[in-house]
C-alpha cells in the first residue's frame, strides 16, 4: 500500500502544478487577447471616464503579475469584495467574482458542474457499451450483418458533427415521433426519472460521436491479443472461444481503452459545448464559451481549472485501473 500512497502524493503534487500552469497560461493568453475588458463589462456606450472607473474596480490597470498574485491570494486566504452597499468576504479557496455579474466563480462552478457531470457520465456509459460492444463484435464476428450495422452506425456518428446528429435526432425523435420530451436538465435530486428522460438524447448524441473511436480501438487491440502466443495455447488446450474473447482478449484491450476513456472523459467535462448549447444544458462548457466571448477572466480561469481537475483526475484513475488490469505495470 505504501506504493499507492507514494503514487497518490506524487500525483497530487503534479496535479497542483498542472493546474497552476493552466491558470498562468490563461492569464497570459487573456492579457494578449484583443477586446477591451472594461469596455465590454461597462457596456458599449460607456464614456472613457466610466470605463476607467470600471477598470479600477476590477483591478484591470494592475500589472499582470499583481493580478495573478491577487488571484492566488484569493485561493489561499480568500478575498474581500464590495457589493457597493456592503463589504463581503469570499472565503478560501476563493476563485474571485465574475466581471460581468459579480457572482462568485465557485458558486457558478457548483451550479454548472452537476449538469456537465450528468451529461458526461451518462454518455460515457453509452459510448463504452456501444463502442466496446461494436469493437468486440467486429473482432470476433467479422463480416456478420450485426457487426456491419453497428460499425456503420459508429462511423456515421464519427463522420457527422454532433450538432447535426443532435438536431436531426431531436427533430425526428422529439418533434415528429414524439417519443421523447425535448431535452431539458432537471436535477437528479429533484426527480431522477425526469433527469434521465431529459438527458437521454444528449447522452446518445455525445456517445454516437465517441463510440467509433472505442470500436476501432477495441477491435485493433483484441485482434492483437488474439494472436498472441498464450491465446493460441489456450485454444490448443480447448478453452472455449467465448471465454477466450471475454476473459483474455478483452483484457489485453483494456489498457488503451482505459487511456482513451480517461482522456475523453476529462475533456468532455468542458468540451461537450456543442451538445450543451444545442440542448440548452447549462453546463461548464456553455458557461466557458460565454465567458470567453465577454472576456470574463475569473470565470474562464475557474472553468478551465475545473476541466483541468477532471482531466488530471481521470488520468490518475486511469493509471490505477490500468495497473489493476495489468499487474506488470508499476504506478509512477
Amino acid at each position, binding site marked *: 500500500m505504501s506504493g499507492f500512497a507514494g503514487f497518490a502524493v506524487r500525483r497530487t503534487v503534479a496535479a497542483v502544478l498542472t493546474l497552476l500552469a493552466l491558470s498562468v497560461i490563461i492569464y497570459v493568453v487573456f492579457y494578449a487577447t484583443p477586446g477591451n475588458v472594461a469596455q465590454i463589462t461597462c457596456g458599449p*456606450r*460607456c464614456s472613457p471616464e466610466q470605463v476607467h472607473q470600471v477598470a479600477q474596480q476590477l483591478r484591470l490597470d494592475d500589472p499582470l503579475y499583481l493580478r495573478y498574485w491577487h488571484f492566488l491570494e484569493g485561493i489561499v486566504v480568500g478575498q474581500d469584495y464590495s*457589493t457597493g452597499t456592503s463589504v463581503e468576504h469570499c472565503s478560501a479557496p476563493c476563485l474571485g467574482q465574475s466581471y460581468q455579474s459579480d457572482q462568485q466563480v465557485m458558486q457558478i462552478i457548483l451550479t454548472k458542474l452537476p449538469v456537465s457531470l450528468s451529461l458526461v457520465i451518462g454518455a460515457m456509459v453509452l459510448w463504452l457499451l456501444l463502442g466496446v460492444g461494436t469493437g468486440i463484435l467486429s473482432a470476433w464476428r467479422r463480416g456478420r450483418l450485426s457487426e456491419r450495422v453497428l460499425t456503420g452506425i459508429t462511423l456515421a456518428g464519427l463522420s457527422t458533427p454532433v450538432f447535426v446528429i443532435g438536431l436531426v435526432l431531436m427533430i425526428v425523435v*422529439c418533434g415528429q415521433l414524439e417519443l421523447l*420530451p425535448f431535452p431539458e436538465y432537471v436535477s437528479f435530486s429533484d426527480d431522477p426519472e425526469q433527469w434521465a428522460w431529459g438527458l437521454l438524447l444528449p447522452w446518445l448524441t455525445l456517445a454516437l460521436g465517441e463510440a467509433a473511436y472505442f470500436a476501432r480501438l477495441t477491435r485493433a487491440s483484441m485482434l492483437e491479443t488474439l494472436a498472441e502466443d498464450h491465446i493460441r495455447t489456450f485454444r490448443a488446450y480447448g478453452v472455449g472461444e467465448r471465454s477466450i474473447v471475454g476473459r483474455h482478449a478483452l483484457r489485453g484491450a483494456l489498457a488503451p481503452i482505459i487511456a482513451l476513456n480517461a482522456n475523453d472523459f476529462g475533456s468532455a467535462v468542458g468540451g461537450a459545448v456543442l451538445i450543451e448549447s444545442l440542448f440548452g444544458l447549462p453546463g461548464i462548457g456553455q458557461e466557458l464559451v460565454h465567458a470567453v*466571448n465577454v472576456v470574463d477572466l475569473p470565470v474562464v480561469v475557474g472553468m478551465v481549472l475545473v476541466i483541468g481537475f477532471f482531466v488530471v483526475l481521470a488520468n490518475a484513475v486511469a493509471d490505477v485501473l490500468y495497473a489493476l488490469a495489468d499487474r506488470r505495470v508499476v504506478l509512477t
Partner: protein
Amino acid sequence: MRQPSDTARRVAAVSVGLVLAAGAAACGPKDNDAKGSGGDSTPHKGGTLTVLNSSPQENFDPARLYTSGGGNVPSLVFRTLTTRNREAGAAGAKVVPDLATDTGRPNKDATVWTYTLKKGLKYEDGTAITSADIKYGIERSFAPELSGGAPYLRDWLVGAADYQGPYKDKKGLSAIETPDERTIVFHLNKPEGEFPYLATQTQFTPVPKAKDTGTKYAEHPVSSGPYKVVENENNGEHIVLERNKYWSTATDAERKAYPDKVDVKSGLDSSVINQRLSASQGTDAAAVTTDTNLGPAELAKVTGDKDLASRVGTGHFGYTNYIAFNPTVKPFNNIKVRQAISYAVDRSSVINAAGGSALAEAATTYLPNQKSFGYEPYDLFPAGKTGNPAKAKELLKEAGYPNGLTVTLTHSNAKDFETSPEIATAIQDALKKAGITVKLQGLEDNDYSDTIHNVKTEPGFFLAHWGADWPSGGPFLAPIFDGRQIVKDGANFNTGLLNDKSVNAEIDAINKLTDLDAAAKRWGALDKKIGEQALTVPLFHPVYKRLVGKDIRNVVISDWTGVLDISQVAVK
C-alpha cells in the same frame, strides 16, 4: 473534438449588439396584429406563460439593463416614469405615462422636466413608492459596480459627467430634485425635447434605498410591476415570476398581465426554441420567445404549413444595417469612390444573405422606414435591386481609378449577425462586377467592436449596424453624425468622423422641440441631407418573425420593439 457552437457566437453577437442587448429582442405582426390562434381568441386571466430564450436575462437590475422602452421581461417587474404605448403597429411607437400622471411637463426651453407620481403606487411588500426612490434608482445607475445602461442620463443631467453613484458620493445628484413624495424634477444641461422617451428606460425604476444590496440586488430586485421575482437562478438563466398582489390595474393602464405565472427559461439553441414552439408539446403550447427570430431555413418550412404560418408574428424594430466609410482612409476620402460603391451594391443578394425578403427590407435611407423616426424616403445613389455597376465604373474613372481598385472590407466573424461573413461575401461578389476587388478582413467579434469604435484603428470600409434606443430620429442620428460626439480616447460611434457645423446646429435646434411630430419631420430631412455625403451605404432594415405556442393569445407587436409584448400575452 467537441467544440463551441454557433449559439455561443450568436449569444456573443447579441451581447455586443448595442441596443438589442437587454430588452428589444423582437417579433410580431404588422399586418396580422393582435390575433390569437385559438377559436375563442378572447384573452383570460390565469395559467403559466413559458418563455424560451437563448440569452439569459443577465444582471436583472434596473440600473444595469440597457433596454429600448423598458424591455420585455424587465417591464413585467420594473415600472418607470413613462413607458411605451402597448398597442400594435405605429400606435405602439408612442410614449405614454406609467408611474407618472403624464409624460412630463417641460419648461419653456425643455431643460427642466417635472413629473408627478400617481397616487397609491406600491412595491411588492406593500410600501409606498416615492419620488425619492426614483431619484435613488437613477443615482445608483452611475455606480461603476452597476454599469451597463444607456449614456443619456450622464450626458444630459447637469453635473452628472463625473458623478460616481450613491455608494461613493453620499451627496447625490443635485440635478434631480424631489420637492415632495410625489414630485420629481430633472435639470438638464441642454434642451432635450425627447426626455419623455428616455424616462421609459429601466434606470427610471424606483429602488427603495433600504432594500438596495448593490451588486446582489439583481438576484431579487423589488418589484413595482405586476409580477415579482420568486426565483432567479444563476444570473438570469431561469427566472420565475409570480403575481405582485400590490400591483393594480387602477394605476397601470398599459400592462394586461393575464398569466398568473411567468417561467423564463434560457440558454437554449435558437433552432431548438423554434422546434419547441412549432411542436407546442406540453408547457410549450403556452410558450413564447422574447429573443429568437425565425431563421431563413425555418421560415422556408413554416411558410409551407398553414397552422404554423398562423402562429407567426411579424414586427419591425427601428434598425439599420449599413456599410460605413472612414473618410480619413484612402481611397474613401474621395466621395466619388464612396458613391461608386453605393451604386455598385447589390441589395437583393445582401438581403438573401440576411434571410430573404421576408426577413429584411432594402434600405436606401439611414433612418428606419417608420413614421415615428420621421422617415422620408430617398435614394440618392440608385442602385436598383441588383446594383448599377456601369454607373459605379463611370464614377471610379472620374475618381482616377479607370482600372478599378482593390479595397478591404472589415466585418465580424460572428455567425448569423448583420455584420457577418455572409453579408460581407455578398458585397464582395457584387462589387466585383464594378471592377472593385474586395478583400475580406474578418475579426473576432470583440476585436471587431474595439477596432471599428476606436478612432485610431478604425478601418476605411466596414459593416455596421445601429438600433433605436427609442423610436425617434434623435438617438439614431446624433450619436453617429454629431461632431461633438466624436470620442478620441474611448468608444466612438461617429464612425464617419463627421463634424459639420450645419448638421450640429440642426441637431441642437431639433432637440429643443417638444412637439415630437414636428421634430420627427426635421430628423427625416436631416437624414437626407447627411445622406448626400455618402458616409454610409444603407443596406437593409431587418424584419422580425417569431413563432408562438399554439395556446398563446393576444399577440401585440408594436413598432417600438418590433416584438410581441409579453405584458399583453394571455395563455387562456
